[in-house]
């Protein structure tokens, strides 16, 4: 009698490599799904573009005749352009992150959570997908730069895209964090209204931050979105021929207690805020009973 234990004839289950390679692979698969869903959803594609166009060409054109943005001859639409880019990216990215609430409600989150992969890879995939979606939508707005008096300089465009992508990543992570805390789909809109809309208004996306009342200036500085809007505006205005006086108002230097915050540090802040949001979101999704 043979004592060998016959193993189950396992169909060739491939063992994916573990470690970082496996995590990245899983993130890429989750990201791919985000993109598939985005490409399928034409309404979401269109909706993502309506709002920025309204800002730029309705609000911008309407106000450009009465609003005089600082000294010099800068079109209000030119001033508004980076702010609208940031706003567009913000809403698209937050929604991409918050979509985890839909995943949860319709059960698909569970399909991802039970897979033999790390939860941080799932969340990273969602962030990456959201960032690609938000940046791609912004590219359409970038294409309209000329209509707003913004030059099509390749360097400017690349720099803007870089900042946009970083901002999208961080804001999607923030959306994920919101999604982790929101109990159901019905609560999503109220949360967007009470959290995201104030953040947009307090970021200086729609008005110059020079010479604001103290409370408003302070609110602007503690608002994470400011660290997405300000670098974008800085990138744009360094590529325009502004008089020093105009630059002082439009490309207003962000300060902490009188200390001018360097451009690079603003970007670091943006990335750091995103990482913190990401870490908290991952922790919340990793809880098991």
């Amino acid at each position, binding site marked *: 009698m043979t004592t060998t234990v016959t193993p189950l004839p396992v169909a060739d*289950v491939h063992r994916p490599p573990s470690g970082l390679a496996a995590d990245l692979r*899983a993130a890429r*698969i989750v990201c791919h799904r985000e993109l598939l869903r985005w490409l399928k959803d034409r309404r979401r594609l269109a909706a993502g573009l309506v709002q920025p166009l309204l800002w730029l060409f309705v609000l911008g054109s309407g106000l450009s005749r009465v609003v005089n943005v600082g000294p010099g001859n800068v079109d209000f639409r030119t001033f508004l352009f980076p702010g609208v880019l940031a706003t567009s990216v913000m809403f698209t990215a937050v929604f991409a992150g918050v979509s985890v609430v839909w995943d949860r409600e319709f059960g698909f989150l*569970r*399909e991802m959570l039970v*897979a033999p992969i790390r939860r941080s890879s799932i969340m990273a995939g969602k962030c990456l997908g959201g960032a690609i979606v938000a940046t791609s939508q912004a590219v359409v707005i970038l294409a309209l730069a000329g209509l707003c008096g913004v030059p099509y300089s390749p360097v400017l465009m690349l720099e803007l895209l870089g900042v946009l992508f970083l901002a999208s990543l961080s804001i999607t992570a923030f959306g994920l964090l919101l999604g982790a805390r929101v109990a159901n789909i019905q609560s999503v809109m109220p949360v967007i209204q009470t959290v995201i809309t104030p953040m947009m208004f307090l970021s200086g996306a729609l008005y110059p931050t020079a010479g604001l009342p103290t409370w408003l200036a302070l609110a602007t500085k503690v608002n994470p979105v400011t660290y997405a809007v300000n670098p974008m505006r800085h990138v744009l205005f360094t590529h325009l021929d502004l008089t020093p006086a105009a630059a002082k108002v439009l490309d207003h230097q962000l300060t902490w207690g009188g200390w001018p915050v360097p451009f690079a540090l603003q970007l670091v802040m943006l990335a750091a805020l995103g990482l913190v949001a990401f870490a908290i979101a991952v922790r919340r999704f990793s809880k098991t009973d």
Partner: protein
Amino acid sequence: MDTEDRRPAAIRVENLQKRFGEVEAVCGVDFEVRAGETFGFLGPNGAGKSTTINMLCTLLRPTGGRAVVAGYDVATQRDDVRREIGLVFQDMTLDTYLSAAQNLRFHGQLYGVPAARLETRMQQVLELVGLWDRRDKDVSTFSGGMKRRLEIARGLLHSPRVLFLDEPTVGLDPQTRASIWEYLNELRHQEDLTIFLTTHYMDEAENCDRIAIMDAGRIVALDTPQALKAAIGTDRIRLETDDGAAAAAAINRNFGLEATSAGGALVLQVPDGERFVPKLLADLGVPVRSVSVTRPTLDDVFMTYTGRTIRDAEAAPGSEIPAMFRGRR
């Protein structure tokens, strides 16, 4: 089959426990599921079936005891367990925005099915559940039964050793339930697979090789459906005769059995009724108009072990445990 007996158990559970705060949902269960068998977990809602299955699937951490699935410990080797099992939940977990094929491809990639094999495997499992023709259709256009079949196909895609089905037919109409079982029985023949399922439909439990009956967090009976029914013993014979009183007297005289009259017929309980009927007809001496034999059902089995029907058990207040893991979290 000798070789089958020597294979290691697909699931081994020792004194498994789970408590949620004050509530003891699973109070120390022990059982073994053999490789290749279809094992049913039967019991009313709130009996602890889903909690147990969730622990076996590594979705809940046991608060005591031990469970080994496909050779891996569910508490300490979670990823290994996950790779070896397929899951079909009570609630739908498909992305309805995507097509059937896109859902499967996502799953196959996450579970590391090699790209070269993925497409052929997808065809295999989709053909198994009769959805190959609809692979490129969006899941949002699927009926409830089709979605459930697609989930079964997805659960099989990465060639798991154990397929867990938590209430696989809940919420489906009887016809769709029957068709799901046709597919499940088909796949038992095609795939070398252990199936672990929970149900509170008695008729579905009959499809299992063995059944554990769970009530209030404990396993109260575990055997084959036939053995469980046999343990209850008696078949019920219903007899219509021209003269009930004479027939009852004859039964008492010739067989030493008490027949009760119910609705113009006589009812008597005997073990192995089908073999008894010929003798009864030969020796009764009273003309018989009709005879029927009813075998005990799993409903009767459940009743015997718990003192309640499955419906009563569900209606009973206080038997509920927190509705864990349903969509939320």
